[in-house]
């Protein structure tokens, strides 16, 4: 139970940080925010990598599919956000 409360504390505090940080993002950048946060939610990749490295062939297969999905999120998300942000220019 103690371990759970610890990890739950992290969860609650992270949500508060999320609210604080995200409310400062201007509407101008809401689309890059969505694609960028998508890339961050690709952090599931680390769970997927560990699933691949399991003895059972079935969970390895699940892990492989999860790695592919999560990696599309990571690479696709960060890259498209980078591409988009490069378009936002100030008047010259």
């Amino acid at each position, binding site marked *: 139970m103690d371990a759970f409360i610890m*990890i739950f504390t992290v969860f609650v505090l992270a949500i508060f940080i*999320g609210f604080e940080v995200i409310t400062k993002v201007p509407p101008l950048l809401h689309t890059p925010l969505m694609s960028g946060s998508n890339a961050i939610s690709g952090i599931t990749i680390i769970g997927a990598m560990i699933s*691949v490295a399991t003895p059972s062939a079935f969970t390895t297969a699940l892990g492989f599919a999860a790695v592919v999905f999560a990696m599309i999120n990571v690479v696709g998300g960060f890259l498209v956000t*980078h591409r988009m942000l490069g378009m936002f220019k100030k008047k010259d």
Partner: protein
Amino acid sequence: MGALINAAYLLASVLFILGLKGLSHPRTAVRGNLMGAVGMLIAIVATLFNQHILEAGTQGLLVLFAGLLVGSALGALLALKVQMTAMPQMVALLNGFGGAASVLVAGAAFIDATDTTLQLTVATAASGLIGAITFWGSLVAFDKLQEWLLPGRPIHFPAQQMLNVVLGVVCLALGIVISVYPTSIWAYWALVVVASVLGVLLTIPIGGADMPVAIALLNSYSGLAGAATGFVLNNTVLIIAGSLVGASGIILTQIMCKAMNRSLMNVLTGAIGPDVAGGAKADDVYAGRVKSATAEDVAMLFDNASRVVMVPGYGLAVSQAQHQLRDLAVLLESKGIEVEYAIHPVAGRMPGHMNVLLAEADVPYDKLKEMDEINPAFEQTDVVLVIGANDVVNPLARTDPSSPIAGMPILDVDKARTVVVIKRSLSPGFAGIPNPLFALDKTLMFFSDGKKAVLDLISAVKAA
């Protein structure tokens, strides 16, 4: 080694937070995004030193790197090929993949679990439920935006809400089975199947113009699914990153709902739509009052103007006219006219959609004005050019309490001296109601396709 890996995860978490913080200004946004990417790289490299992966053997590593490679290649392909007009579809797809990854990881962890605590089983059920809803909901949203199989309009059938409630209860029951009997692997897959159906059913009643809300909400779900998976694996970086994304999606959902003056419940059940009758008939509003104009008429208006505001809507994205609109603006500026763009929060199919389109067309971002900033300035505006927007400039939102859009914050374009509306016909917008703006004395209707209209305007202004 475990402590070092966890320290690397902490560093990754910090970089994610700093990265999102960077998105608070266009000047720091590129660096912020890169920080996030570096954080992800650190997390991935650290995971390679995980005990299980070190002991995985050649075959396991081959599978792992094959997966990393295939995913990276597909992701890069998507990111480099996608058109800016198709960003809503892209984000919908990415949301869905995040959900799918959570379902698979939680499933694999549940099967392999040796020490099944209540935390693990409850979190597994939550990952499966939220992840599957996110995956299928996002696929439906993607399809609606792409208009492949399903129409963009809301889909309703009898006893829809009832069915959703029943499926929700079944999910809950399966979740309890999973929590109480940690060996019931079948219950997990049953939950995933039922949640998948629920994900589809929850998304089909959402109409095209409500997509900004749906996508923002699914964005939040994909984060929460990741956080739930973090509880399954007892992994803090998953929990932190998932919560950040979950919070982000919820904030965007709130902003979108507020910009439409509707409750989240109302959007999710698709209660608004053409079948909602309200206010006057189109004929009574328009008959004998609508003035149609040619490109030459509009060019003459520009000739006497000193300040012009462009009001783009989803129609701009549909006709891909953002580059032409920018050319027109530059042409007007070369004649000494001040040009700005007014962006309504729900213009387009996702939060910030119009900003990205116009940025793609090289419009400097300091010319893109938010609603609250530009509304007081309409009174000093000579010509407003509305292109592909309808409901977000409908003055009924201010004046008619019985209207379906009553109370929705709008762009006060009717306060400008003259209004030019580029539109194919007088057909209503998503709210299904006539727009008295089109019948005002100061309004000229320019009936045409968006891109063609702007091109005609450019030649007319050049000729004048």
